[in-house]
């Protein structure tokens, strides 16, 4: 057999986990014999991924420090701001790994209420998180202004359904279409908005999900068979 290559390991691990999902389903009783091996893989491999991700942090950290250090040393554009990144990165790394502010030495929980790391999270990270998120309100407004234009049949349908749902969200907006006679009640704003979110929206979501499942299985088969491109990482 050709020398055992990384892509053979990929195929072996993938096939093992697929079989494990049936031979040793999670929550089942503890299987004996060969199934125990599959149960072991199913349980352990995903936790190993988490461990590898932490090892990889070293590579990311080295790259981050390298990029910003080079920018400072070569006085590239915005190099003064790279100092902010370097100082804050190394500072928080020391504060967090050394658990400063909490119990003495390395004792206690790094995320304890009085630990400096928690103060950094509450004081710096959470306001930045909340504010970045809140930019979405502005971008939703500018995106809808530009994209919802009746240029083609497709964009007109996009515009129509968005408008019906948006106006439907304005309190007592259904007064706008309350004048419609009873037998045309399904055209009233609220009924239409409910219908859009109940019928076409459900149909579209289901088709997308079924398609994605097939795309995922197809990519998995290509990876296992070793024909998938983008495995530059394995060359």
């Amino acid at each position, binding site marked *: 057999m050709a020398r055992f290559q990384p892509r053979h390991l990929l195929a072996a691990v993938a096939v093992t986990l697929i079989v494990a999902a049936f031979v040793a389903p999670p929550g089942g009783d503890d299987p004996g014999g060969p199934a125990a091996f599959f149960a072991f893989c199913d349980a352990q491999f995903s936790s190993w991924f988490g461990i590898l991700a932490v090892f990889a942090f070293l590579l990311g950290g080295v790259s981050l420090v390298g990029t910003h250090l080079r920018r400072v040393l070569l006085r590239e554009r915005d190099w003064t701001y790279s100092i902010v990144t370097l100082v804050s990165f190394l500072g928080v790394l020391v504060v967090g790994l050394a658990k400063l502010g909490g119990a003495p030495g390395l004792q206690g929980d790094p995320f304890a209420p009085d630990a400096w790391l928690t103060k950094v999270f509450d004081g710096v990270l959470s306001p930045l998180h909340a504010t970045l998120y809140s930019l979405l*309100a502005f971008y939703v407004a*500018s995106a809808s202004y530009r994209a919802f234009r009746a240029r083609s049949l497709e964009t007109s349908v996009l515009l129509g359904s968005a408008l019906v749902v948006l*106006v439907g969200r304005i309190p*007592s907006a259904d007064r706008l279409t309350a004048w419609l006679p009873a037998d045309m009640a399904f055209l009233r704003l609220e*009924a239409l908005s409910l219908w859009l979110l*109940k019928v076409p929206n459900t149909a579209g979501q289901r088709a997308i999900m079924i398609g994605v499942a097939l795309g995922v299985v197809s990519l998995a088969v290509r990876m296992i068979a070793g024909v998938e491109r983008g495995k530059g990482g394995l060359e």
Partner: protein
Amino acid sequence: MNASSGAEPFLERLDRRWIFLTLALSVIAALLYEPVFPDRPGELVRPIFDRLESLAPGTPVLVSLDYSPSSAPELEPMAEALTRHALLRGLPLCYLSLWPTGNNMAERLESDLIATEHPEAVYGRDWVTLGFQAGGELLAHAMIDSLGSRFLTDSRGTPLKEIPALAHVVGLGDFGLVVSLSAGTPGLKEWVLYVGDAGGIPLAGGCTGVGAPQFFPYYPRQLMGLMAALKGAAEYEAALARVYPGQVPEVMRATRGMGPQAVAHLVIVGFILLGNGALLRRRSGGSAP
């Protein structure tokens, strides 16, 4: 499918910062002057309100608080509205939760609402808190036949038999209505699949805006009513204010929260119409404004 390029004169090339400024100023103004937009219960919310109105006093109502503080802004106003309505109609309330955070969500309702607005309410008679228990959908399913099989006591250690509110309750079917206020999993979906379908038990729900689209298909066959996002809560509050003027706070939480939302939606709809108006004018040969 090309959604958004194409050179168009003035109004279409409007600098996006005008949109940002208008939106910011309108929301700031709404927060300062707190406009109230009267609302009316919609097709999905009215059945829940009517159901509670029709129950004979003394019929218990189950509210499952399946959310955490991060979703409280959208779901807690629903819990408050249901609590007010049940207490006004003399329907004993039973809080439980599939989420560990359910316990303190119940405590917030007890301290912030029941203690202040309904001091006359007596624990055990007017409301009871069973609290959180692990098990998710399996817990919900097991309670169909017997509540006592999983909750031997309430959250204060009192055996179920000694709680007047649950005197006639054996299984979930003995509740006038079961409502799950759900921010995710386990939540309303599990209640529908494991309780609504299986047990044939009348089920209503409350959900966040992002979660709403997945629940619309269940209405009305598997879900008799749904409060979706802050608007759903505001609609229930509108029904309460109309039927119980003076007995409920003049402007309740969701209705106040809908002020900035309504203003922001009006601004966004306004700009969309503006953009299309310019497009139509250009297409009909008129010169750009």
